[in-house]
C-alpha cells in the first residue's frame, strides 16, 4: 500500500515538472542519497523480518528503477522541448515508404468483403482444368459453335496423362464456372459461394483483352432461390462496391449454356463517377465495348443454373433452384479506378501499382 502510494505520487510529480530544477527536486526527494524516500526504504530493509524482506525487497528495487526511468525520460522530454524553437515546422514530412497491394488484389478483397457480409463463402479452383468441367459439365456442347464463345488454350498431353479417367483433354480454364460443378459435387445445398480466380483466353491482347485475367464466379443454390433473389444480391453488392455513386441497373437477355434464363447486367454510374470506357471480360467471349457512348457499362453475365448443370453435379434439378454469375474483376477495377488499359495490371510497373 505504502509503495503504491509513493509510486503514484512520485510519477505524478515527475510528470508535472515544468523545468529541470523542479525535476531535480523530485529526484532528491525520492532518490536523494540521504533522505530520499526510496533510499530510506531500502536502508530499512535489513531491519525487517526475513520473510517480509524477501517479499518487499524486489518491489522496492523495481520501484526505484521505475522512478529513475521516469526522471530520465522527463529530462529528455524537457531537453527536447527547449530545442523546439529550432525546428522548422514548415519542413515537409518524411516520405514514409510502405508497400502497396495490387489494384486487382484490392478489388478482389473488396468483392470478398462485401460477399462475405452477405454470407457467401469464398472458394477457389484449379487453373488447369479438364475439358469436362470447363465445357461438358456446363452444358456447352462439343462440336457446336457455342464453344467458340470461349477461345481456349489447350495443353499438350503429357506422357502419363490418363485421358479417360480424368475428364478428357486438359486446358487452361476459360472461366471460373467449372468450380460450380466441382463445388456441387462435394457439397449439398443450400449454400452460396463466390469463386475468385485467374482465367485464360486465347485471343489477341489489346487495351481491353488479356490472355490471362480474373473473374469472380457466384453461385447460390437452394429450394427456391429465384431471379428476384439474384437481383437483390447483385444490386446490394454493386451498390456497396460503387458506394458514393448513383448507380442504375439494366438487365438484358443473353445466352450462356449453363444458365437458363440467362441474362446480362449493365450498370450506369453518375455523380462523381467519370465514365469508364473500358471493356467486358466476364462470361462468354470478351468483346469490344462499343457502348461507352451510351454510358451503360456491361458488367457481367448471369442466370438461373441450368438443370443439366445440376444433373452433372448429381443433384436432382426438380428440387433445386439457383443463380450463377460471372464478374470480370479486371473490368470492375478498371471502372472503379478509371484505368484505361487492362495490360497495366500485368505490367509490374510500380509507378502504376504504388498509386493504389
Amino acid at each position: 500500500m505504502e509503495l503504491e502510494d509513493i509510486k503514484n505520487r512520485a510519477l505524478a510529480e515527475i510528470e508535472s515538472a515544468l523545468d529541470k530544477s523542479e525535476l531535480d527536486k523530485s529526484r532528491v526527494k525520492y532518490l536523494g542519497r540521504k533522505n530520499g524516500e526510496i533510499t530510506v526504504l531500502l536502508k530499512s530493509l535489513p531491519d525487517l523480518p526475513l520473510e517480509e524482506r524477501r517479499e518487499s525487497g524486489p518491489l522496492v528495487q523495481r520501484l526505484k528503477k521505475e522512478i529513475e526511468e521516469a526522471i530520465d525520460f522527463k529530462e529528455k522530454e524537457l531537453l527536447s522541448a527547449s530545442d523546439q524553437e529550432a525546428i522548422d515546422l514548415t519542413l515537409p514530412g518524411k516520405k514514409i515508404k510502405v508497400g502497396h497491394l495490387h489494384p486487382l488484389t484490392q478489388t478482389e478483397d473488396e468483392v470478398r468483403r462485401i460477399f462475405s457480409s452477405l454470407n457467401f463463402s469464398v472458394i477457389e479452383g484449379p487453373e488447369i482444368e479438364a475439358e469436362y468441367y470447363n465445357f461438358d459439365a456446363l452444358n456447352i456442347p462439343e462440336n457446336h459453335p457455342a464453344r467458340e464463345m470461349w477461345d481456349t488454350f489447350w495443353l499438350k498431353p503429357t506422357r502419363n496423362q490418363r485421358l479417360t479417367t480424368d475428364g478428357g483433354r486438359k486446358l487452361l480454364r476459360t472461366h471460373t464456372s467449372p468450380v460450380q460443378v466441382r463445388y456441387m459435387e462435394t457439397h449439398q445445398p443450400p449454400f452460396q459461394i463466390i469463386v475468385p480466380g485467374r482465367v485464360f483466353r486465347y485471343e489477341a491482347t489489346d487495351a481491353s483483352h488479356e490472355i490471362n485475367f480474373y473473374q469472380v464466379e457466384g453461385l447460390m443454390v437452394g429450394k427456391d432461390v429465384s431471379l428476384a433473389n439474384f437481383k437483390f444480391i447483385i444490386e446490394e453488392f454493386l451498390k456497396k462496391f460503387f458506394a458514393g455513386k448513383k448507380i442504375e441497373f439494366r438487365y438484358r437477355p443473353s445466352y450462356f449454356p449453363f444458365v437458363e434464363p440467362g441474362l446480362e447486367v449493365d450498370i450506369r454510374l453518375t455523380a462523381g463517377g467519370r465514365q469508364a470506357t473500358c471493356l467486358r471480360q466476364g462470361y462468354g467471349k470478351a468483346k469490344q465495348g462499343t457502348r461507352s457512348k451510351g454510358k451503360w457499362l456491361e458488367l457481367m453475365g448471369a442466370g438461373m443454373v441450368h438443370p443439366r448443370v445440376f444433373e452433372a453435379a448429381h443433384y436432382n434439378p426438380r428440387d433445386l433452384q439457383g443463380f450463377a454469375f460471372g464478374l470480370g474483376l479486371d473490368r470492375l477495377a478498371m471502372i472503379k479506378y478509371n484505368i484505361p488499359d487492362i495490360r497495366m495490371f500485368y505490367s509490374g510497373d510500380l509507378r502504376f501499382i504504388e498509386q493504389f
Partner: protein
Amino acid sequence: MKFSYSLIKKMVPGLPTKKATAEELNLKSFEVEEVSRDAMEIKIPANRWADAASHWGIAKEAAAVFNKKLAFRAPKIVNLPRNRGFLNVKVEDSRLCPRYLALYFALPQKIGKSPVWMRKTLKACGLRPINAVVDIMNYVMLEIGQPLHAFDASKIDKGIVVRRAKKGEVIKTIDDLRFVLTKQDLLIADHKKPLALAGIKGGAGSEVLSGTKAIIVEAANFDSVNIYRTSRRLNLSTDASARFSHGQSPELVEWGANRAAVLLRDICAARLKDSVDLYPKKQARKLLRFDLERFNRLTGFKLDGKTAWGLLKKLGFSLIKEGLIETPALRLDIEIFEDLAEEAVRLYGFDKIKSAPPIVALIPGESEEMVILKEKIRRALISIGFSETYNSSFAAESDSDAVALENPISRDKAFLRTSLIPGLEKNIKDNLRFFENIKIFEIGKTFSGERENWRLGMATRLESENSFRELKGAAEKLLKMLGLTDYLFVPEDKDLRIESSHQVLGYLAASRRGSALEIDLDKLLKLVEAEVEYLPLSPYPAIERDISMYVDVNLRFNEILEAVNSLKIPHLFDADLIDYYKDENLKQGKVSLTFRLVFQSASRTLKDEEVNREVDRIIKVLSGKFGVKPR
C-alpha cells in the same frame, strides 16, 4: 450478323424508328448495335440461329416485342409439280442429310441482274450481288434463313447423290480453291464428280452462269456436327456453313424452297417443272409443360396464367391445353421448362422483377484456408514495405517439367511458368529506371508436370543496403507473422534452402545487388496452423552488451552463432548481428561484425559482474575457436 432495318420494317410495318427498335430489341431479345444507314448489327446467340438468323426471325421477335402484326408470311405453293422425272436424287445417309428438297426450273430468258431492292438488301447485309439466280439464293437465306444452292442442270451427270467423300477425294470450289477430303466429309455429287461441299460451298463446273437454261435449286438440311467438323478442319467458313453448324430445322427447307420459287418466277420468269423432297423422318412436334407455379417460383414473379401464356403466344408458341405448350418448329433451342420460362420472362422484362432478399438458413460463410493465408501474407508484406505485382502465367521453355501449350499464342509464351522468380526479376529490371530501391512480391500459381501450386515470390534490389539481408530478414519476419517459428535457412550451393519441420518450403537466391526467394504456399499452409502464444514479459531489466570483432571473411555468421549457442550461456535471451561491414581500411580478408547480446532473467535482476563474466567467456571461446579479434 448484319440486317436491313427497312426489310424488317417491311415485315412488321408498325415498328418505330431504327434507333427505338434497336433499343427495345436490346432489352428484350438480342444485343443490337446500330450500324450505318440501313444496316443493323445484331448478335444472334449460338442457340438462336435456327430461328433468328434471318430477317423473318428478327421480324417475329420485333412483332412480339412491340406487340405488332407480322405482315410477312412464309409462302405456300399450290399444285407443286413433284416427281415428274426431271430430277433424280439419292441421299445415302439420311442422318447426315435429314432432308433434301430439289426444285427443277427452266429458264426461258437470259439471267440478268437482280432488282435494285434486292441488291440493296444484299449489300446492306454485306453480300456481293452476282446475278439474279445467285442473288435470289442469297436473298432467301437472309430473308428466311434457309441456305440454298443453284446448280446448272445441264452440268449434272444423271442425278444428284448426297454421299460421304472418298478418302483423298478432291473438290475444287467455285472460287477455285482445292480441298482434299476424308470419309467424314459430306458431298453433293452427281454420278461422276463432286458438285458441292454439302452445306458449305458450291463446286466449280456446275455454277449458274448468265446463259444457263435450266437450274436445280437445292434446299436441304444437314447434320450440324458433321458440317461443323468439316468446316473447322478445312478452315472454310461460309454463311451457309455457319447456319448449318449451329443446327437448322428441316421444316425451314420447305419455306426456303417456296420463297425461292416465287422469286425465281417473278424475277427470272422461271418455270417450275419438277421437285423432289426426301424427308424420311419428319421433325417431331414438341410439347412442353408450363407450370405457372414453378415459373413464379423460379423468377420471383407473380404472374397469372393468362399473362404468362399470352407472352408465349406472342412468340409463336401455342397453348394446347392449360399448362401444355407446343413450340414453334424453328425454335430448336426450346427443350425444357426453363427455356419457356426464359421466353416469358425476357418478353415481360427482366426489369419488372422486384428484387427480393433470399430467405435462407443462417450458416456462416467461410473462406478457404488458402484464401486466408494469401490475404495474411499480403497484409504482412505490405506492412514491411513490399509492393505487389501480377505477372503472366505464360513463359518461354524453362525446365523439362514445364507444361507446354498445344496452341501457344507466341513462342515466348509457349509454356506455363514453373517459377514466379523470372517475372519478378523482369519487374525489377523494368522498374530500375524509376526506382533505386525495389521490394516486390507476387502470389500466384506455378505449373509443373500438370500439377499446379500456389507460390509466393519475393525479390529485393536495394541501392544503399544489402538486398540479401533485407530479403532474408523480410522472409523471417513474414514467417513469424504467420505464426511459423521453427524454420531454418540452410545453405545449399549458392542458395539458401528454407526449411521447416523437415520440409523444404522454398529457396532464397542471394546476391548483394538483387535477391529473390520463392516459397511453396501449399506446404506452408500445412505448417502455419500453430497459434501465436503469449510469452510472459520479464519484470526484470535486460542488460545489453555489444561485442565488435574482426573475423575472417570466409567465416560464416552461423558458425559463430552456433558456437555461442552451444555454450548454453545462462540468461542469454538473444544474440543478434547489428553491424556488418567490410571497408578498405580494414585488413585484407577481414570483416567487422558487431553482435548484440541481450541478457535477461525471468526471476531476478542480473548483476553487471555476472553478465561481464559470460561475455568474457564468449569472447574467449570465439577467439580460441575462430581466431577472432575483439575491437
